[in-house]
């Protein structure tokens, strides 16, 4: 998000430009402060719950390293090595301090650095999620806009019907259908695995297309529905009637008034879709054999590797909050409604 406006047009005195820049900066700062007011308590509560999972689960690294037959002394020794014999709040404080420095500890199963493991997985998952969001935004905006412009015609009904159908298709069902048709049936796409973008853009896209499409259905449906609703609503507003009376072109009315006012809910939906996208990656990565973030979460959880699971949850929270911050900033910039503080 840039905080500076376009260069001053000729004839506009400099103080006015400075005032406008200050105004924009203030708006961005206000949006940041508002998000931070939500972010900080969210992060504290969520990390505390996450950390309490270990005590609640009663899982211990000794079980993983020594097996079920270990003597109590051996278990106690291993737990002391991991610092698990200290009071709960001390452990939480240490762990939280490490988290703030980006250190997520070491895995119970193989002693590897969790931050590194998650970083490797994130490269895969974020590629897929970004591509899914791109498909979702482009297709969702196209469908929603066309439906709103041709509202109450057969085009609108067809789009609404299509959106209803894809909105009830869970990501893993779509994934299985896609694998069946495009990998097993038509051999158009590889059915599993991942190739980093450095090894060629073509193979990279080929590997992430199907998972991204599977994840995107939900986003497409929600964005299209939300955008259609708010655009139709915006067309009923008095300022649109006023613009028509003033003789503005339909194009100018759409871009200048309707879209700017109707964009808010669709963008806000995007912010809410992101956690769902992260969650669904657990299933889609399993289907498409991707060693991503979701797969790592599932494997660690099923292995009882508590620090790894905690790391995954913390990273997912940070991702969600960061993405919402981005959406907030875009909202604060784009829509007149949020400038009014609605």
């Amino acid at each position: 998000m840039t905080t500076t406006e376009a260069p001053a047009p000729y004839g506009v005195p400099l103080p006015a430009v400075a005032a406008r820049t200050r105004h924009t900066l203030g708006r961005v700062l206000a949006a940041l402060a508002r998000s931070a007011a939500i972010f900080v308590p969210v992060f504290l509560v969520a990390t505390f719950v996450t950390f309490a999972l270990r005590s609640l689960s009663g899982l211990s690294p000794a079980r993983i390293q020594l097996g079920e037959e270990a003597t109590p002394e051996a278990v106690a020794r291993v737990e002391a090595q991991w610092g698990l014999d200290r009071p709960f709040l001390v452990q939480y404080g240490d762990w939280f301090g490490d988290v703030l420095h980006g250190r997520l500890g070491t895995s119970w199963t193989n002693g590897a650095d969790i931050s590194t493991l998650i970083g490797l997985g994130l490269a895969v998952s974020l590629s897929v999620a970004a591509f899914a969001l791109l498909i979702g935004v482009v297709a969702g905006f196209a469908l929603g806009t066309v439906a709103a412009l041709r509202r109450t015609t057969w085009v609108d009904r067809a789009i609404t019907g299509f959106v209803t159908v894809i909105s009830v298709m869970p990501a893993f069902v779509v994934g299985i259908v896609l694998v069946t048709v495009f990998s097993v049936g038509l051999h158009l796409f590889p059915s599993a695995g991942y190739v980093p973008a450095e090894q060629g853009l073509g193979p990279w896209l080929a590997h992430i297309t199907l998972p991204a499409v599977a994840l995107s259905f939900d986003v497409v449906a929600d964005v299209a529905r939300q955008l259609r609703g708010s655009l139709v609503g915006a067309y009923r507003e008095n300022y649109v009637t006023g613009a028509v009376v003033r003789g503005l072109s339909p194009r100018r009315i759409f871009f200048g008034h309707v879209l700017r006012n109707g964009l808010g809910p669709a963008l806000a939906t995007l912010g809410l879709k992101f956690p769902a996208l992260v969650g669904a990656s657990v299933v889609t990565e399993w289907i498409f054999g991707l060693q991503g973030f979701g797969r790592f979460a599932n494997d660690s959880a099923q292995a009882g590797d508590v620090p790894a699971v905690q790391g995954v949850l913390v990273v997912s929270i940070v991702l969600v909050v960061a993405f919402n911050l981005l959406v907030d900033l875009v909202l604060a910039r784009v829509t007149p409604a949020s400038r009014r503080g609605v």
Partner: protein
Amino acid sequence: MTRRVLALASGRIAAAVLAAIAVLALFGPLLAPHDPLATGDHPLAGASGAHWLGTDYLGRDVLSRLLDGSRVSVLGSLEVAFTALAVGAVPGILSVHLGRVFEWVTLRLADTLVALPFLLFAVAVVALLGNGLTQAMLVTGALVSPLFYRVARAATLAVARSPYVEAAIVSGASTGWIVRRHVWAKVLPPIAVALAQTVGVGFVIVSSLTFLGIGVQPPAPTWGGLLASDLGYLGHQPWAPLAPALLIMVTVWACNLLADAVRDVSGEAGRALTGRPGARPDQRSETAPAPSGGV
């Protein structure tokens, strides 16, 4: 309200589909033509008179496994929905009445829960806290409860500003009496909408978890588990995922359809009561984001 929902064609269709699913859940194991766990001599067979939907990789009857697995899905999704209702709606109503501290704390908690990717948390919690689907569903219910919190709070706020509630406060009515007498009736329709949506979301979550093999022990059949085992044999039986996938999708669709029908009916009720076309009591719930269809 039930009669008016059933007066709509969409309401009747949704109710019929959901009733059929409920019958499957109640009597599915009895209706199953074969033992869902009995392995047979003809693995990966196509549809035939003896096995209407064919057999899986161990020769088990797919139709029987589908019928037998329906109970887990239905129970699980109801658990999600009613946990979310209990955890979300009550604080949502009370947040308007119990003062600023309670309001602030519950609002922040709702923000927190919304920010958590709930499938990820469900997976983590079930795997760490014990392999039972019920725990997973309770946790998921708590994670999707902000929907109910927001819907109930919005409806309560709308009522709390109405003249008749102000009149009741002035005439000395207690908060409990006002909630029971006035607020509850206004909050009910949007909550019914949210409940239907959440049951649909619950179906997707149960299916996703059982698909990953979380929450149920292997031989026991589930819709998600069927899909997972089909995935390994797509080369032999590319049509195999069709039946469980369609079941899941039709159920979720029926839940959404019912939610829309309830919303339409209660919207008309709002107009009829106030006489103003714009005043719909569930307007906030409409603009409030619906839970995702796919997790």
